[in-house]
């Protein structure tokens, strides 16, 4: 799965580059607009260490943000699963708040908390939090009647058991959502860095944009893509291992 993710990314990235070069040579665009392959190679050699460190910084914020958002989403999802007034309130609030673009709130966060680590983390967590929350709410609100019935009628049902049953029965969905949210966390961090932060690959892309240096942007995209492909592949592999550990097939 991991090599496949990397191949898939490389194919898509190289296709994109090929299209760019095709446009460049078809319309006779100068190297200032779209760099030549030699420029791209030279830029890669010049900045890969610096950009690699930036991507690592962005990834570390994204991972922490993702962990925070998974934890929060599980907590709120567990509370919101109930068919009580409070549960309904949490569900409605979650659906409404997630409809509001986090990027639009980002400037407020930077004004209040500055352009450091915390603002990047908060935006990353917020961007991947709501999709996870909606999935967790959906999973936790749906009773697994054919399993839960016995525990309910015999008075053995506790909230911990209810959560365990529902999480176990939807383990594949949960691991898919969590591995999918890695992209969102990464995108959230980059967006935050691009808007106002003072570190990370998003910040470097912003500088490259001001310099109108497409080579640097393409190198940054390549490093982001390959890192994300590896991270997602590892998350999927971990999800499969968990699934195999708890599920027995005939």
């Amino acid at each position, binding site marked *: 799965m991991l090599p496949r993710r990397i191949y898939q990314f490389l194919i898509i990235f190289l296709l994109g580059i090929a299209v760019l070069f095709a446009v460049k040579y078809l319309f006779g665009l100068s190297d200032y607009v779209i760099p030549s392959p030699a420029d791209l190679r030279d830029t890669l050699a010049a900045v890969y260490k610096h950009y690699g460190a930036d991507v690592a910084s962005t990834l570390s914020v994204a991972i922490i943000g993702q962990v925070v958002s998974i934890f929060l989403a599980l907590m709120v999802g567990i509370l919101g699963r109930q068919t009580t007034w409070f549960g309904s309130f949490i569900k409605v609030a979650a659906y409404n708040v997630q409809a509001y673009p986090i990027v639009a709130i980002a400037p407020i966060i930077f004004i209040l908390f500055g352009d450091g680590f915390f603002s990047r983390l908060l935006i990353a967590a917020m961007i991947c939090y709501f999709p996870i929350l909606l999935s967790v709410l959906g999973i936790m609100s749906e009773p697994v009647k*054919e*399993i839960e*019935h*016995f525990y309910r*009628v*015999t008075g053995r049902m506790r909230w911990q058991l209810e959560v365990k049953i529902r999480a*176990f029965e939807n383990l594949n969905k949960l691991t898919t959502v969590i591995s999918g949210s890695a992209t969102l966390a990464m995108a959230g961090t980059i967006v935050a860095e691009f808007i106002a932060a003072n570190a990370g690959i998003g910040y470097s892309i912003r500088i490259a944009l001001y310099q109108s240096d497409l080579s640097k942007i393409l190198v940054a995209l390549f490093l982001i893509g390959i890192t994300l492909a590896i991270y997602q592949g590892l998350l999927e592999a971990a999800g499969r291992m968990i699934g195999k550990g*708890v599920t027995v097939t005939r």
Partner: protein
Amino acid sequence: MALSCNHIFFQYPGASTEVFQGLSFSVKQPGFNALFGPSGVGKTSLAKIIVGEITGYSGKVNADGMTRLLYSYNLERLPDWSSVGRHLDKITPDSKDEHKEALVEVFGMTDYMGLRFSQLSLGQQNRINLMRYLLQDFELLIMDESLANVDEMTRESIILKIKAMFPDRYFLYISHNVVEVSKFCREIVVVRGPLKQPQTLSLTGIDLKSHQSVDRDRLEQTMLEIMNAA
């Protein structure tokens, strides 16, 4: 103790027709009794009304002296995170350990207790599900197709064992097997469609016990009565 339903009227929300129109019946004695009737006539709905899983009906359900009424059905599953043996251990009160051992043997599950639920055949799954209900405290247990997919010989020995082990409890056995119902049940409540009045007819079954042999003529007669009533 006795179980009775008086003038039950019930309609599912959004449905155009009533499931029950003044349904009444009573089961006066404990033992192995049956709810019999064609598919879709409302046996499961009636069972859920009796145990309180369905509300919103009119009429009265009297379960005098009964506080623990359970309903089990054949689609239930055990969580797959541990073996069925461990699940049974967890839900069995200490005082019922001997019962558990006896049931595991009679239900033919001794060799399968280390397996998880998904590793069992459908018949084994239904047996293990029924076993865990039998290990609870109850005065009435409704068994809705609880022995589906179990072979006839095993089903017979299970029913006879249940009758021997729990002579003072009420059982309502829901099955479409007219031979089985006629042979093993004491009171047979035949549920009919809402257009037929009365909506139930009560018949007497053979109530066969261990080491008894069945009178073929009586069995055929009982089966005929059930089929005519349905």
